[in-house]
């Protein structure tokens, strides 16, 4: 993702929008949990959690306007690391 031109932050208006989106997504995830969708509930809820985290990372933590590559790499690397050790452990536990 490119650092958006000359901006260093999203601005108050955008922060308020992100806050509203986060609150809405929270309501959505609670509603989803109440719907008894069985197996897909966890996928939807974790998906919404991932989306909320992405909003916090990009706009509140300013990753969208970050210039330093090493910082922009930190989250993707952490995600890959977690995927490897959670996925790898699952491949063991799942097949026992």
């Amino acid at each position: 993702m490119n650092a958006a031109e000359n901006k260093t932050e999203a601005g108050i208006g955008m922060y308020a929008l992100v806050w509203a989106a986060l609150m809405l997504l929270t309501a959505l995830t609670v509603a989803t949990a109440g719907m008894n969708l069985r197996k897909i509930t966890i996928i939807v809820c974790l998906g919404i959690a991932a989306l909320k985290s992405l909003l916090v990372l990009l706009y509140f933590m300013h990753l969208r306007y970050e210039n330093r590559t090493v910082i922009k790499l930190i989250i993707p690397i952490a995600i890959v690391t977690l995927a490897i050790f959670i996925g790898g452990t699952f491949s063991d536990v799942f097949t026992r």
Partner: protein
Amino acid sequence: MSGEIEKGSGGRVGMWLFISTEILLFGGLFLLYSMYRFKNPVDFHAGSRELSRFFGTLNTAFLITSSFTVVLAVHWLRHNRPEKAGLFILATIGFAFAFLVVKAIEWSAKFEHGLYPSAHVLLSRPRGEVLYFGLYFMMTGLHALHVIAGAGVLSVVYAWVKRGRVSKDKPILLENAALFWHLVDIIWIFLFPLFYLIT
């Protein structure tokens, strides 16, 4: 990309590196949760039914809003309005306190029903539920410690903003404290569905 490194960005790099270690710390606990949940789906569901979705949602709202107030604090510091920044830092600490009060209420309720690590009542429950509540106290407890630490750091930064030690020209301490606070928010964003909303 040019070869010039942004002046003063070193402190921010350091903070992000620390954040990556925190992600691995909680990641390990999420790993444990995943495996135990996979092996004990019924017991985990039973355990989650004993948590208050209302309090969990309320705490989520508190932390999301506190992330909003802390980013506003950073915004106003950057725009050379330290008095406004100070107010938003106080608001953030206020929400942190509200979160901890709710957490204390929830935990007290559990303790009163004999549900705490090593308790006889808890240990006489199905093994999966013992694991669930063990993870619940460990993960929300570790998270709450981070809330306390974050609020403590923000309090010190508040004092320094008032004294002028943190300002538009030297914002890094507030910016880093805010980054830590957002991390605390993100961790809870995942804890909430895993403990309160799973079926």
